[in-house]
């Protein structure tokens, strides 16, 4: 049954605040970026020249742009996979805790309240090659930690810093998902003699798949678009370009380099990527997800 309103105006009126917010904060800037991408402009906006697709041509003939795409993919999937597996592990264990459950769960959720840049600074201090406790400890363990020089180590650092925060968020959803799994199913399997491991993989995990799918989307979007604060505070995209993700590049070229046209062209490409990602995920992956 569909709900109908007596007047035509009321639903629109109720929608209006949300539509306004969307128009002002999303559609208008997106339109501006789209327009800007076809112009070359000096920073102060004193002169402006239409250059057609030149900004895009520059972008797609730049080998570093492809490298940045690859970096973004490696980074995003690492953040999503590491963050989700650790959160799932913690959630499964937290689900079993009997005493002090609330305290345990609250503590695990805390990091989510830390601002990304702050999380970045925190890990940056811990891993500082000459005074960071973790770096010094690694040194005694025989690992020469210097993320200023080693691109892979820099990548590990930004993945850790970005993941740490996200674990809490994932944890919360996995925990809720676990609590929604009917006990009767698990008990029945237990009576049939299934081991705890088997019960998890054949019953709990498939039932968690809507949560997992949702989190995968959220985590990828997070890693793609919301981690530039962490990267800026830890590696600033370096060494070389080893931690320059697409979003960091937009920030760096636009905000620091004041190349508005080039940066806008990159944002347009990002918009296209997000659109594509959403379609792929919902068309192909969602089909395999069990919702009930």
């Amino acid at each position, binding site marked *: 049954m569909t709900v109908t309103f007596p007047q035509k105006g009321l639903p629109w009126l109720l929608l209006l605040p949300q539509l306004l917010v969307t128009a002002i904060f999303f559609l208008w800037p997106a339109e501006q970026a789209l327009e800007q991408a076809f112009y*070359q*402009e*000096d*920073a*102060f*906006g*004193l*002169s402006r*020249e239409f250059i057609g697709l030149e900004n895009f041509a520059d972008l797609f003939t730049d080998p570093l742009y492809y490298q940045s795409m690859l970096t973004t993919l490696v980074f995003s999937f690492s953040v999503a996979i590491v963050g989700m597996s650790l959160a799932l592990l913690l959630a499964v264990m937290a689900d079993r805790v009997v005493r002090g459950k609330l305290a345990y769960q609250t503590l695990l959720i805390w990091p989510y309240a830390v601002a990304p840049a702050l999380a970045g600074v925190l890990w940056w201090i811990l891993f*500082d*090659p*000459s*005074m960071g406790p973790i770096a010094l400890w690694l040194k005694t363990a025989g690992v020469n930690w*210097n993320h*200023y*020089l*080693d*691109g892979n180590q820099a990548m590990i650092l930004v993945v850790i810093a970005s993941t740490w925060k996200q674990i809490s968020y994932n944890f919360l959803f996995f925990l809720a998902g676990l609590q929604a799994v009917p006990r009767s199913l698990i008990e029945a399997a237990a009576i049939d003699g299934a081991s705890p491991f088997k019960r998890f993989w054949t019953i709990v995990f498939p039932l968690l798949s809507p949560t997992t799918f949702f989190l995968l989307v959220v985590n990828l979007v997070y890693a793609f678009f919301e981690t530039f604060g962490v990267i800026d505070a830890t590696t*600033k995209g*370096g*060494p*070389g*370009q080893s931690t320059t993700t697409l979003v960091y590049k937009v920030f*760096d*070229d636009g*905000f*620091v*380099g*004041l*190349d508005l046209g*080039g940066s806008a062209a990159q944002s347009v490409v990002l918009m296209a990527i997000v659109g594509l990602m959403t379609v792929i995920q919902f068309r192909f992956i969602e089909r395999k997800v069990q919702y009930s």
Partner: protein
Amino acid sequence: MHNLKLASVVVGLSIASSGFAATQIEWWHAMGGANGEKVNEIAKAFNDSQDTYEVKPIYKGNYTETMTSAIAAFRAKQQPAIVQVFEVGTASMMAAKGAIYPVYKLMKDSGQAFDESAYLSAVTGYYSNSDGQMLSMPFNSSTPVLYYNKDLFKKAGISQAPKTWQDVESVSKKLLSSGVSCGFTTAWQSWVQLENLSARHNVPFATLENGFGGLKTELKFNGPLQVAHIEKMGEWQKNGIFSYSGRTNDGAAKFYSQECAMFTESSAGYAGIKRNAKFDFGVAELPYWEGKAKQPSNTIIGGASLWVLQGHSKEEYKGVASFLSYLSKASVQADWHQFSGYLPITKAAYDLTKEQGFYKANPGTETGVIQMTTGTPTANTKGLRLGNFVQIRGVIDEALESVWSGDVDAQTALNTAVERGNTLLRKFEKAND
């Protein structure tokens, strides 16, 4: 009732104060911490010295954030009258002819006495046009020097500070064998190890007088001198003489912890080092390669200057002019120089500081000034004027990092950086032609 009374008093006060409101002048700056407090103090002293104008300093974050905010504000027609812009933003500001109000013109238009020869040419040269007219007012300028740990030097049996890079190498070897884990580290690698290296040896960093001659400039820092230096540093990174510590001045931590015995860093880093070093340290001039230059030339400056933006009233500009004159006063300059470690911008301020015995009481603080003022600046040592310079520095950072990690040899890395940098220069030329 009580609250109502209080409110009426507040309203009354604000009406009263707006009755003879001074003309307000906004000054956006990037000075955090102790320097930021000093900036407020300077503005307050100016405001107290007269009652026609009121300068309002506003902290806008780091250099990049301050410049970007000012540009965004200009586009929205909400720009401040004065904004502090770092030296690498100079070319962008200069190219924005409709946005800036050149300082020499401002001073003339508002009838302020303004004698450009009173300023240190090594400082103002960076911010002047080809006719030698000052476009912005230097505020905080610094130059790279070498800090060294005297205690570690003594332990290794070294009595003298290194003068040349050859000395740095031999001294470092002694230090390493005495148990120190790294010879030297550097802050701001592009500024110190390429831009100032070139100036020190009177070698061009870019064509057309390092960009002073026009937008058609091309990068030149892949010459034999620069390649040899970077190659050597790559070698030193491997054997422990040099230890890379990031693009900014994070290397200070290695110097404080006595991991590295020497540190090439801005002369303005003095206050921080003095506060944090738990050992006796000395300040020496930036080394040069013996045999590559007869006499080391002056180094170039870093730091920032104050730009006046268009779009304000005549009355406000009068206030700006009188504030800039106030800033240039010997007493104000000398105080700022002694407090912050930035270079004095006038000869009078330098002389006053000398007279006050500050350099005697704080050995090492004069090194930067002396090094800056050796000889007359040449086309190669006047400074750099390159568009998109922020990004070019990023490109250089990447190139140098690839050498330090041993991935690429110095020649290839610098060639790539020059090529990528030139693309950025052409882009800037096109946007600003």
